[in-house]
């Protein structure tokens, strides 16, 4: 009996937000431990302005984050406010787990034009709004400064095409060094014994190829989906994508990149940090990981210009409210605060990610500059007209991810040619939508 009573009390105490002494405690979930400090400052500032509301931050790593969230929703005790990623939110909307905040946005006359163009609309489905933007990211080349200097490679203004790879491939070849010190573009280069690979591509990159093949494919004229967000027809069978995938695979054939079956499972940043590669393609959320590295000196360069221009993936996060929260008003207040300059300026000064509010972005740039980090190209890419594309957002994100990444693996391993593998994958993907 006593045990049961104890369990019951524990179960009650474990619930999301509990009201104590007239005050409210909100749980706020995020995955990036690097950003936790900045958001704790936001939480403290918020608590000062609203003494009756306390924010409890709950952080868990990306790999566990989504699973934890689902389990918590099943048990009815999910965090009141949740950091959300655009490709993950449709499944929660489909199961009625997120609160429509459009009525509050209208009532409080939130100025949606203060956010970076395009970000706020990502979170609208069927006239309902589910989140306020918090930050965004773009993609750039990261390269080893000393290696580039030694090779005499100029990383600015590179070009690329899927046929001969343009000056981007020339740079990669030049940066590749074999065991005898011969470079990839010199006669006598031994592609079987490479000491430093010119590029460490992130090929195992889901269904979007955000860190590489997706960006180059779009710069080659590829479009992911008929309508974004919430299209229902994907175009993975496009020859533009297949050409791009083939180009990436040829890099390994030429010895400029590690063959896929001999790629480290520890990720490109580990490889680059170990000095085993000269350049990679990465997102702005990795700025600190690379520029604060103690083993190598890195710098960023804009992505190469493809046949259709320079195209960077553009993605954003938002704060959403759990539909099962007991404190809707308090949760909205917190989300409103997170989406305001008051909090986003704090995030900007912390200089980890670029905040969603346009004016705060300049502040983040200044903070980076003060710390000696040159990250201007990420913002330039975001500002360039037609320079970015939004990552596809649709239903069935998880299944698409698995289908396309398996097909891509078949291409990287040379088991199937890109056209065949991707056409088959595209049929499976589109069947998900026709099947309901």
């Amino acid at each position, binding site marked *: 009996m006593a045990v049961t009573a104890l369990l019951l009390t524990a179960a009650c105490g474990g619930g999301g937000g509990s009201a104590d002494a007239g005050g409210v405690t909100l749980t706020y979930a995020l995955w990036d431990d690097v950003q936790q400090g900045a958001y704790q400052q936001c939480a403290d500032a918020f608590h000062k302005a609203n003494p009756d509301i306390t924010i409890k931050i709950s952080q868990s790593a990306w790999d566990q984050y989504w699973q934890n969230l689902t389990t918590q929703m099943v048990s009815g005790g999910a965090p009141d406010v949740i950091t959300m990623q655009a490709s993950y939110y449709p499944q929660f909307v489909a199961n009625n787990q997120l609160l429509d905040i459009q009525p509050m946005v209208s009532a409080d006359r939130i100025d949606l034009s203060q956010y970076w163009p395009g970000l706020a609309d990502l979170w609208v489905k069927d006239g309902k709004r589910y989140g306020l933007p918090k930050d965004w990211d773009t993609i750039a080349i990261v390269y080893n400064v000393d290696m580039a200097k030694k090779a005499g490679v100029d990383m600015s203004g590179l070009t690329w095409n899927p046929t001969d790879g343009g000056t981007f491939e020339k740079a990669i070849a030049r940066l590749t060094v074999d065991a005898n010190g011969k470079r990839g573009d010199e006669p006598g280069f031994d592609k079987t014994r490479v000491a430093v690979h010119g590029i460490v591509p992130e090929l195992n990159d889901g269904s979007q190829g955000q860190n590489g093949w997706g960006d180059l494919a779009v710069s080659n004229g590829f479009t992911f989906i008929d309508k974004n967000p919430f299209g229902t027809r994907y175009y993975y069978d496009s020859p533009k994508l297949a050409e791009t995938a083939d180009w990436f695979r040829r890099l390994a054939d030429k010895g400029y990149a590690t063959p896929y079956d*001999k790629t480290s499972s520890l990720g490109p940043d580990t490889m680059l940090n170990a000095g085993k590669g000269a350049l990679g393609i990465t997102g702005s959320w990795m700025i600190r990981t690379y520029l604060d590295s103690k083993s190598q000196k890195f710098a960023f360069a804009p992505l190469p210009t493809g046949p259709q221009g320079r195209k960077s993936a553009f993605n954003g996060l938002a704060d959403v409210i759990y539909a099962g929260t007991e404190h809707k008003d308090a949760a909205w207040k917190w989300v409103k605060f997170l989406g305001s300059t008051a909090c986003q300026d704090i995030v900007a000064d912390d200089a980890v990610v670029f905040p969603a509010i346009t004016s705060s972005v300049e502040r983040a740039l200044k903070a980076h500059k003060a710390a000696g980090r040159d990250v201007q190209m990420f913002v330039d890419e975001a500002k360039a007209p037609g320079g970015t594309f939004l990552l596809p957002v649709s239903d069935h994100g998880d299944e698409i991810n698995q289908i396309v990444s398996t097909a891509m693996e078949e291409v990287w391993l040379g088991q199937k040619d890109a056209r065949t593998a991707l056409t088959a994958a595209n049929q499976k993907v589109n069947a998900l939508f026709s099947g309901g």
Partner: protein
Amino acid sequence: MTTATLTKTETAGAALPRRRRGDGRVALAFLAPVLIGFAAFYVYPAVRGAWYSLTDWNLLSEPGFVGLDNYAELVRDPLFWNSLKVTAYYVVLTVGMQIVLGLGLAALMHRLTRSLVLRSLLVVPWLVPSVTSALLWMWLLDANLGFLNHLLVSLGLDNQGFLTSPELAMPSVAAINAWGATGYTTLLLYAGMLLVPQQIYEAAALDGTGEVRQFFRITLPLLRPILAFVLVVSLIDSFQLFDAVAVTTKGGPVDATRVVYYYIYEEAFTHFKMGYASALALSLVLILGLLTFVQMRLLRASRSDLA
């Protein structure tokens, strides 16, 4: 003399116990902790699982009854059949490695040394949590930065994608887990060997039988019940492969290590298809039950040649 008689009568008394009332209740009280645990953590979830396998539950929505749809889908699902295939491949590899290595080590210990230190050292890898050992080996076997590849390259050989090439990934995972489990298997087999009466070996030695012949003619046949037990346990155990795959390969490259447990996990917690995952899990229960039954039959495990 008196003592002997006494013992005899006592033994006789124990062999023919008089029925005492209330025994059942006392027994129940002693069994209760286990029974409650069994009911709460095995029977109840199993029954719920059986029910979910007939629904389209996705964790967040209300489960809706769909009859045998999940099972029909399962039969047509190439990934399910592939997962069974790679699991079987893994089981053969890892159980084979464990038994062969375990037998060898146990025989060495049995015939050469009774050192307690050695025996304890053998189980050390088994004491390492499997996630830790998987992580450790993931680093050691890494295609570019791993120590093993560093050795290969310094010997003038090519580096190998132990966990990243479709051919090597599964053997590597099997070897990692065999590394962890062999010590335990060895101990079980060693204990079994100690049960073989010493006189048989002495007699064989008098007849001039060599060590190798003794092993195959005496140790192995008399070890059968223990071998059967080890085989069944390690078979069921290795069917449940999950952690090493989740840590090192995540089912890749191209489904080469997407074993059935990992597939069930993905369907349930990545794709939230709880109903379908339950159907997968129940099919696995069926397969495992059948396998165990066949094995026990084939090996006549309950009977020993020593009796």
